[in-house]
């Protein structure tokens, strides 16, 4: 009984210390007011518990609804996250499919190639994209050399660059769960579908896609959730024209030094993410039940 309790306690203590406590601190800051002090908000515990509690309010959350910068940034983030998840799926599915149907002796190598980019720092890889996408970058030089274009395309510092960055960065998170689902699939199912009158294409839509559904859902959430709060990619590749909530949060925190508003932005972002996270968990659970 005691052992079992200890075993269950470990993840709960982990969650409490590394998630619940920091969240409560952030939430408390979001209810405070900005101040020229260290730390830059008031009230703090030094003012005594009674004063502390009496001076907390939802003013910052009200402020978020008043300035249209914030809800525009949330909406724009949502749009970018949804679209880039969809693009990642379009690119990732054929790769996962090719991997799952590749000869056995190739698979380990292909898997390695998918994971390989993780061996380099994420920041360096995004910087590399700046070198590729800029006006004098590799891509433009190559296209001009080919004679396809005469003037360089403006890609860097546009939303397109953000999409490219997100699709590139999160592609492995899409490929791996889809590959896992396709790899488990019995190829005789496709033969059975063809035997019963399907063309190759119909068999793909009626059998392969439905049976890799769980992989698609898992991959999509694994891309969507981090993409929504993404900060590095829009600030390095997106330029000033791209509005994303991660960037807004950074600016509130470091440029304006307005910790309370930054915290309020973070709390709202978390609330938005709770919905897909819960859906993701439910999908995983359903998958496990189906396998039993």
């Amino acid at each position, binding site marked *: 009984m005691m052992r079992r309790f200890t075993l269950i306690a470990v993840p709960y203590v982990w969650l409490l210390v590394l998630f619940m406590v920091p969240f409560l601190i952030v939430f408390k800051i979001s209810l405070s007011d900005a101040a020229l002090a260290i730390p830059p908000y008031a009230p703090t515990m030094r003012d005594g518990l009674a004063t502390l509690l009496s001076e907390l309010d939802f003013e910052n959350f009200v402020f978020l609804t008043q300035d249209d910068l914030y809800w525009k940034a949330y909406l724009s983030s949502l749009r970018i996250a949804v679209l880039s998840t969809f693009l990642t799926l379009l690119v990732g599915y054929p790769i996962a499919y090719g991997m799952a149907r590749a000869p056995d002796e190739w698979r380990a190598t292909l898997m390695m190639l998918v994971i390989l980019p993780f061996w380099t720092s994420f920041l360096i890889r995004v910087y590399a994209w700046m070198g590729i996408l800029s006006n004098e970058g590799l891509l433009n030089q190559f296209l001009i050399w080919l004679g396809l274009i005469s003037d360089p395309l403006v890609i860097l510092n546009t939303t397109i660059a953000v999409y490219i960055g997100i699709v590139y960065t999160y592609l492995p998170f899409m490929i791996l769960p889809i590959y896992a689902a396709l790899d488990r699939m*019995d190829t*005789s*199912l496709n*033969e*059975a*579908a*063809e*035997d*019963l*009158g*399907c*063309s190759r294409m*119909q068999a793909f839509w*009626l*059998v392969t896609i*439905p*049976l890799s*559904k769980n992989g698609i859902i898992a991959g999509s959430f694994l891309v969507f959730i981090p993409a929504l709060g993404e900060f590095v990619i829009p600030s390095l590749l997106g330029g000033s024209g791209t509005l994303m909530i991660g960037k807004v949060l950074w600016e509130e925190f470091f440029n304006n030094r307005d910790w309370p508003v930054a915290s309020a932005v973070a709390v709202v972002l978390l609330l938005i993410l709770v919905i897909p996270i819960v859906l993701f968990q439910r999908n995983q659970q359903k998958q496990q039940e*189906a396998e039993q």
Partner: protein
Amino acid sequence: MPFFKERTIVSQTVFAPWDDPNQKPLIRFQNVTKRFGEFVAIDDLTLDIFAQEFFALLGPSGCGKTTMMRMLAGFESVTEGKIELSGADIGHVPPNKRAVNMMFQSYALFPHLSVWENIAFGLKRDRKSKAEIDARVDEMLKLTRLEKFSKRKPHQISGGQRQRVALARSLAKAPKLLLLDEPLGALDKKLRQDTQFELMDIQETTGTTFVIVTHDQEEAMTVASRVAVMDEGRIIQVATPANIYEYPNSVYVADFIGDVNIIQGTAAAKGPETYAITWADGQAPVTATSKTSFSEGQEAHLAIRPEKIGISAQKPENADNALQGKVLDIAYLGNLSTYHVQLPGGQIIKAQTANTRRIARRDITWEDPVWISWSATAGVLLAQ
């Protein structure tokens, strides 16, 4: 020992289209060869299969039986030769355009669809009306006694039920030819025997031509109207189960089907269609009849089934062949006992008797000196 269900054919005549030269075969393999790179899977094979047959392809794994079936289904192309279905070459017809359906060894049921949807899958591809599909699926559910499970998913039913869903799904489109790849391989022995009879009943009711692939000789003998014994991409013998068992054309077939004693020796003519086989030093030659002729001194193999050999404590009178030996081992199978009798030269001959008396009253036991005997017509004399 395999047992055969006598086939009930509606007409008075015996069902044997393969003996009638005027019958057109449903399937005709003409000098078909299939190579995978260097490996020859099917070697210049010619074979006719007739409508309404229950045809079994029997052989060890790797003999090419599955390749033959996959060529019929359209999943493998033919390297040389051609395959005809109802007189038309089907070499370039893709699987989805063939009037052939297949029941897969793994059943290949669609896990995301219910039993009903699995059976309806092929019908929906034909763009049949909803009423037609409903009627046909209900008919199939009834045929395979699955009415109660129509809403279940494949993982919610037993192995035997899954097997029946696979059968119903492949029969739903009323194919000219149904291919069954090791259809009972995943079932346990008792269920397998029941299902064999069920398969035969369904084959007779629907009048569909069945081609079954199996490595289980008992299964092939039980269900099939004809059996083709295969080895290394060739067909060694095609015949009815009874003829395969009683008149194998080679030692390979005799050995593959059931239990057999092989006595190897040299033949010498003894009378009309009768030969004496000298088989061991210090032993009298054994006598056997044979319709195929053997030249003087030709190597010959006498194949005799254990149940055709009698065993007795006293020397039997009037036996064509009688040899003395001692009982080395007794395999008690309940209904039958197999005696392993060792001859003075060390050879072991198996003799089988039905246990019509209780075990306590059996008069032969281990180490007993016994006589084994058989008639001149009991065995088959084979050149190779």
